[in-house]
């Protein structure tokens, strides 16, 4: 072991970044973990447990566990609300960091809460003025956003880019009325609803949804959008969520609109059989959704039997949005000197090693390099860690 520890920068605090950081820390490597938002955990930390009477292998709980590992590991230094400004790679990598320009997803009372109890801080003040107006609403221990970001220079021996993905913006599918009709939600919205409330409730009136439709491949496998990839996670999350919904409410009537159902878990044949007895599957992707007076939705799709269009009413429509390249990918590509593939994800050196890149010392982990489940992101991050360790010659 060399006397001076090696240092690696991990960019992105989602499940892949967390895993890469933690794996590296096991080998006495100092890790600087950079996260753009004020909270670690990425998208995966927002997902709910999809167990029914038994575990359904969604892996959401493993994200909690990995976040805990990371926050408890002294060798990992976390920089929240921080992003990379400049990077110089001449054998030795030097990085300029700056405070990120974070904007919360939705309207807040001035304070944003993390998604996990392991987020530290748990509450971040994003609007000081609002908080001053209503100081009672500011929880103890809340930290100002400004106090989090880090500006400065870092010298590191390698970089793991784990900046993740973005969910498909469902508003782009205008005919589904996402954000116009409150009871049209995305799979990610439903994850958050289930995690917070433990039930499938309609956003419009807080009632338990009885008749639920899942529409698959929203944004994925879409030639018109030029998205020629399967996101690989939507069938698993939708079917697991549908089973969970049915488990919470046995009277729920669930319909899944699909093109091709992808495998879920290791025992997929058994699981799919169970799904087929519990829900109705319609091999057709609906065209239009219309709002109804009671907040319900009328959906138009083609009937398989006669090829005619029919309208059917649902309480809640869940759009299974896919995994899209991260919003910053083209910027990051220039910044890190690593190319993107034809789909806009980062390209590894070859099919077998999609973690190493043509830029020596820069590695990829997780969905930055293409769609992945939680388990696959963790595995990919482990592979990245292994390549980094070899690169650094750490033993």
């Amino acid at each position: 072991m060399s006397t001076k520890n090696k240092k690696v920068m991990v960019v992105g605090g989602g499940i892949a970044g967390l895993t890469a950081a933690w794996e590296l820390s096991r080998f006495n490597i100092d890790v600087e973990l950079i996260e753009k938002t004020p909270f670690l955990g990425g998208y995966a930390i927002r997902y709910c447990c999809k167990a029914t009477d038994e575990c359904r292998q969604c892996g959401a709980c493993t994200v909690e566990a990995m976040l805990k590992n990371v926050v408890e590991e002294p060798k990992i230094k976390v920089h929240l609300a921080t992003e990379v400004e400049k990077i110089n790679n001449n054998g030795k990598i030097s990085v300029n960091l700056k405070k990120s320009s974070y904007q919360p997803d939705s309207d807040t009372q001035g304070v944003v809460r993390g998604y996990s109890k392991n987020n530290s801080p748990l509450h971040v003040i994003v609007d000081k003025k609002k908080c001053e107006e209503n100081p009672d609403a500011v929880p103890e221990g809340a930290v100002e956003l400004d106090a989090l970001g880090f500006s400065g220079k870092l010298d590191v021996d390698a970089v793991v880019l784990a900046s993740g993905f973005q969910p498909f913006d469902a508003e782009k599918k205008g005919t589904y009325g996402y954000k116009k009709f409150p009871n049209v939600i995305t799979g990610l919205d439903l994850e958050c609803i289930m995690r917070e409330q433990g039930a499938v409730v309609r956003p419009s009136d807080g009632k338990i949804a009885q008749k639920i439709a899942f529409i698959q491949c929203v944004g994925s496998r879409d030639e018109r959008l030029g998205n020629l990839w399967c996101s690989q996670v939507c069938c698993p999350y939708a079917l697991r969520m549908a089973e969970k919904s049915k488990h919470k409410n046995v009277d729920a009537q669930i319909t899944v609109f699909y093109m091709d159902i992808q495998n879920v878990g290791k025992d997929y044949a058994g699981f799919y059989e169970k799904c087929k007895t519990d829900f109705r599957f319609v091999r057709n992707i609906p065209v239009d959704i219309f709002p109804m007076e009671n907040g319900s939705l009328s959906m138009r799709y083609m009937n398989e039997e006669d090829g005619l269009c029919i309208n059917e009413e649902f309480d809640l429509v869940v759009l299974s949005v896919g995994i899209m390249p991260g919003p910053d990918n083209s910027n990051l590509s220039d910044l890190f000197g690593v190319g993107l593939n034809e789909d806009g994800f980062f390209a590894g050196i070859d099919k077998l090693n999609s973690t190493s890149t043509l830029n020596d010392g820069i590695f990829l982990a997780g969905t930055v390099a293409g769609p992945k489940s939680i388990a696959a992101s963790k595995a990919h991050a482990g592979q990245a860690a292994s390549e980094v360790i070899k690169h650094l010659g750490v033993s």
Partner: protein
Amino acid sequence: MTDMINTDMEEINIATDVLVLGGGLTGIKAASEIAGSGYKVILVEKDAELGSQKEPETLVGLKEASKGLQDFEDKITAESNVEILTQARLVSAAGVTGDFTARLSKGEEVIEHKVGAIVVATDFSAGVLNENYGLSLGDNVLAQSQMAELLASEAGKQKFANKTVAFLVGLGQDGNPLVMERVLKSVLALQEIEGCDAYIYAGDLKVASNGLERMYKESREKGAVYFKLTEKPEIVENGKTISFFDPVARRGIEISPDFIVVEEELRADDLNKDIAEILRINVGPSGFLQNDNVHFFPVRSNREGIFVAGSTREISGLPSAWTDVENIAVEVKDLLGDGKKSVAKNKAVVNEDKCVICLTCYRCCPHGAIYWGDKKAIISPVACQGCGICASECPMDAIQIGGFNDEEIIEQVKSGVVSGNGAPSILAFCCQNSAFEAGEMADMFQMQLPDGLRMIKVPCAGKIDLDYILNAFVSGADGVLVMACHPGNCKSENGNTFAQWRVNEAYRMMEEAGLEKDRLCFAGIASNMGSDFSHIVVDMEQKINELGLSPLK
């Protein structure tokens, strides 16, 4: 190294040689990576040659693989620290991680090796599904492997010039992306042949793998026709004609192909069953060697120091096998280090005076961490995961778990029974991996929790002794919750099942004692479900409010 300051730690020496079972591409890559980390590797292959089982181009379909195979073979044959044993197999593996004694047979010879870790890298095999379609293989009915083989040569390709080829996939079995990839590769290859038409009769197109949707699109653009069906088409006279009714076009569609290509399922290696028995690791769905348990992903088995790679653990293509191997390289390095390991002295301690070597612990340990010496059971501090199932199952109470001593827990039970404001006292025994985390989440997120609730942390629900539950009631608890991970999510595989059994036992005793069953509740929960935790404990409080305070108070 800071661990060594802790006086409860001790340093032990462990074996650092590594056994790799399976000389296919995955096994070769594993041997190469692990040897590259400086460990001696024994690579065991049942056949006469390495890499013989997988013909990369036809089965795995990756050009990189063919090249990779040669590179790695050259590398490991040159590596002085890889010992290759062909025509050999594992006979037995005694001991625990850091100290396995593997016996390998090669012909008449039996070779014994001390190894610290074992990597299983078996192959899968392909089985053609012609019977599922009522077809017999022959000149016009080909298995997917035969098709790929023909397409690998120019002469073979000519067979399909000006011919019509029909593929059957995903209708004889659900299939998976690897099966799909093989079909797509063949379809694309056929489209380079003059006058060849390809029709694909498919169930669900399994495109959930990188690049497949693009291949699907490319093949359609080049003229391949896909019929997506929900049931098998009608096949007449061993494939002379294929027909089905198209509901959209509202007509029957019939084709008379020159060739039919039947899909193949990918099956777990026949060797898996024996290997699992010898290594005492679990066989998961469809004969692959890993349970469907997220805490084991990607490469862990239920036993420390035994890792599973690639097609050993699931149907996976070479890219994911490569990912697995890199993960194993990290795990092995972390586990074996430089051969000196710092371990906690009190992880699980067996009291020699109490132990009668009844082997209950050996049988119930899900991690295979226990063996026995002359006077007592021995729990390996490296292999032990500290779940405490053995401690609770031991009929002599001879085992104590560090940090979760029985006396300390009983003390927590007694002090946890609180009575204030007339709120019922509820004790929740919580697995530290799930329920305890969920409880903390509910608390921090200010979800509703009963005033009289106290959580008692246990390393695994399997540590929740019947004594703890009974003690709680005797101490005056109005309600007791036993909260475990959901079935299939226990890090110790079946700690939750043990907990459930003990709750059932407690029910029986409560019935005898005339205590209402509703005062005891077993629940499965995950670490990230604070809201469920809140619902469960609030429901419990309501139930107890209906029953009134405990008669044992």
